[in-house]
């Protein structure tokens, strides 16, 4: 896929991620956020429909989750932030604008560690700003003759927009950033953050430059699609395209998907209907209590806490979410090596070989339940084969091991 001269260039990428916050109700009204299969527009009130005179009221839970996520991303939370209307004339945006933040965002100046440098230091990506915003509606064409359909069930669902500096230099780094972002916002229960269902959406801005250059050309937008595999492929495609253009002495014009000129950009207006959001230092400190501490180096922490090394350490340290899962199980169960065998064995197998899209979070077996299962094996209540059969059921149903063992008459539970 790489262009012949791609090796003379590097990509420079910044990311804008839209993280849907896991609230019961929408960002600016009391409608339920229900991503399921409800009737179209079952969750659409006067505010969602932008009826005359309907006013937005900020969902405090969205602020809470947004702040926790921002803190998890290492950001400084602004004591005062403001809302703004970002105008766009589309049916997806019933009011004719998206209600978001612009000049005074919720948080800024974060840092996300995506790996380690060759020298062993932390490899980080700076988060430039974190804004509260809302999702748009969905328009479908072709379902009805001579009419388009508009569904506002998710319109107004709260979204946290996370923007980074342009300092990722390979698709692998971008994927690593998105995975770490996902892990951090999940770690504070702020979002499901799944690309597959749109609770996480990623847009990258990519430009190329000759290796050794320091300047930055105008970037082109890359839509991250519905999986990390798609994201990586899209980045490589765009890199190849721009490298090819640059090799011929050209520069990349921005082929925006919506066909509109990038120049000028959308018009913003400070939102008169919402007063500034004022957060006290005490309240912000309280939210910090929900944010788990992050180790300076995951490798070092795993090695020190669990005494593991070699290929096992490499495999776990390379997947932060898997490592979190491992640590949660090992701490409860108490045998780091048996836990590693299981996490890198049956657990990985249950997750499937998803490559970039491996997602330990998707596993239905809770860490405490796996620890209990391993306890049963250690205590001789279950044989290895029975344990694996129980695990397979647990991965399907999310049940605790004791119940599965009893019902399926496994091990000594079955003998009783």
């Amino acid at each position, binding site marked *: 896929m790489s262009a012949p001269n791609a090796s003379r260039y590097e990509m420079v990428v910044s990311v804008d991620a839209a993280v849907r916050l896991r609230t019961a109700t929408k960002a600016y009204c009391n409608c339920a956020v229900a991503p399921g299969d409800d009737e179209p527009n079952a969750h659409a009130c006067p505010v969602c429909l932008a009826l005359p005179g309907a006013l937005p009221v*900020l969902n405090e839970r969205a602020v809470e989750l947004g702040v926790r996520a921002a803190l998890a991303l290492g950001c400084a939370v602004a004591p005062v932030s403001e809302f703004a209307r970002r105008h766009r004339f589309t049916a997806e945006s019933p009011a004719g604008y998206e209600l978001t933040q612009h000049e005074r965002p919720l948080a800024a100046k974060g840092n996300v560690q995506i790996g380690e440098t060759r020298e062993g230091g932390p490899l980080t990506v700076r988060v430039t700003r974190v804004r509260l915003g809302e999702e748009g509606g969905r328009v479908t064409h072709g379902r009805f003759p001579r009419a388009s359909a508009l569904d506002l069930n998710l319109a107004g669902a709260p979204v946290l927009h996370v923007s980074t500096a342009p300092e990722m230099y390979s698709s692998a780094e971008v994927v690593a950033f998105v995975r770490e972002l996902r892990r951090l916002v999940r770690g504070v229960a702020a979002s499901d953050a799944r690309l597959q269902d749109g609770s996480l959406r990623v847009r990258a801005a990519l430009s190329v430059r000759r290796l050794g250059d320091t300047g930055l050309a105008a970037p082109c937008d890359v839509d991250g699609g519905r999986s990390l595999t798609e994201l990586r492929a899209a980045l490589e495609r765009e890199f190849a395209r721009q490298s090819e253009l640059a090799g011929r002495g050209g520069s990349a014009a921005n082929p925006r998907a919506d066909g509109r000129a990038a120049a000028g950009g959308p*018009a913003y*207006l400070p939102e008169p209907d919402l007063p500034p959001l004022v957060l006290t230092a005490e309240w912000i400190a309280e939210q910090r209590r929900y944010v788990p501490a992050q180790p300076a180096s995951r490798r070092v922490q795993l090695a020190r806490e669990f005494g593991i090394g070699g290929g096992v350490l490499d495999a776990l340290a390379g997947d932060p979410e898997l490592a979190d899962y491992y640590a949660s199980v090992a701490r409860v169960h108490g045998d780091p090596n048996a836990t590693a065998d299981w996490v890198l064995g049956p657990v990985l197998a249950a997750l499937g070989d998803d490559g970039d899209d491996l997602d330990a979070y998707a596993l239905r077996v809770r860490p405490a339940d796996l620890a209990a299962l391993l306890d049963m094996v250690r205590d001789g209540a279950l044989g290895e084969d029975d344990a694996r059969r129980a695990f397979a059921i647990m991965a399907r149903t999310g049940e605790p091991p004791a119940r599965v063992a009893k019902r399926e008459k496994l091990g000594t539970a079955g003998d009783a």
Partner: protein
Amino acid sequence: MTGGDLLELGASALAGMVRAGRVRADTAVQASLDAARDAGALNAFTAVHSSPRAALAAATRIGGRAADTRKGARGPGGGALAGVPVAVGDDLADLALPTTAGSRILAGYVSPYEATAVARLLDAGAVIVGKTNVDEFGMGWGTEHSAYGPTRNPAAPGRTPGGAAGGAAAAVAAGVVRVAFGNDAGGAVRQAAAGCGVVGVRPTYGRVSRSGLAGHAPSLDQVGAFGRTVDDAAAALEAVGGRDPRDATSADIAVPALRPPAGPVEDGRPLKGLRVGRPREYFDDGVDPELRARVDSALALVRDLGAEVKELSLPSTRLALAAYHAVAAAEAASSLARYDGVRFGWRAAADDGDAVTAATRTAGFGAEVVRRVVLGTHLLSDADGDAHYRRAQDARARVAHDFADAFEDVDLLLTPTTPGPALPVGAAAGPSPAALRHDAFTAPASLAGLPAASVPAGRVAGSPVGVQLVARHFGEAVLLRAAAALERALGPEAHA
């Protein structure tokens, strides 16, 4: 007591008689509906209930169902405005009559939810008899920019009603209702009150919920009250004010008793201890000389009533008009983007989605709305980004700062409400210099979010004019106490 006599009763007095069972609510509503029909030539209403029964049915519904009035929930059984016929602007959402904000783009639109001000009005027992004509979304100077055609001034033939909420002012001036509501973005309620010879009050920004108000400039829009008298307007505001969880900009500050004391004060100096400012920028050469003299005699009266009058300066006043028009236009361009023909309201026929929106907005909006939307869009997105809008906001902050400084030294300001009487018919049809200047003395308090009232001050060249009082934020009690004292001192002949 005949129906017509009922309409001569103050709102609170009538409510008292209804509560006491001495007057039936439907009798009062019938009188109001008869008066509305007799005043039909004014074109004050965009919709009127067909019968007292229809009006009362609408007034006693909660969430679409008939309320049990025996429990005191709505209806004329109890409440401060029990059985009082009132009118609300066509830009305030009720559940029974169309809410179109004077615009073709909302032709036939009936709101599925109620404005908070309307809900509270009905909770207080009032009965809405109809919706009053407005300039489209509140943009204009004399209710000449409504899809329903212009409203005429009952107190000054040949003149507009004087402001964008003209239908409500005309309805009060013509004796159809004692109380009405309108949107005062840049002064519409005060201007129309002055122009028609009635009382108009713009409360502090945040005092009355804007939920359900189809305005155009959310940082300026504010539900205001008209009354035949200060007491009527005060009773109206008491009923609708207060914090509303559906409006994040509504203030969590309790509404004090606003109705001024009924009898005269013993020593005849009810304003003793009050300091009243005379800002010289409001008495410049642009003010009709006769009006200027009249306002100065009002100041003399205020002094006789015990107040201390102080000359002062609000130097940023000259910036206010341009700032107001820039802010209002920018916010209008933004706030009216929702009128696209997709989800509600009137829709033009066209081939595809974008064309439907373009055709709907082109044919659905009137000329003044289009002018401001184009201007506002330009202000927000020209080559300098939103530089013009920012400069306007800076000027707005200076205007507010001037007021804050002035209120260190005085408790109230007294000014003409407008530079002259209501504009002649036709003169408010476009943004002429005279039309723009019509906002000069009301826009500053709007920019600063301050409460202000217009009290009738007799006639100039045969047409009603008003005196404006401006108070500190949430200073409605002082504002209305002074307004009532001035009203009494000016005497009944000051009213139209």
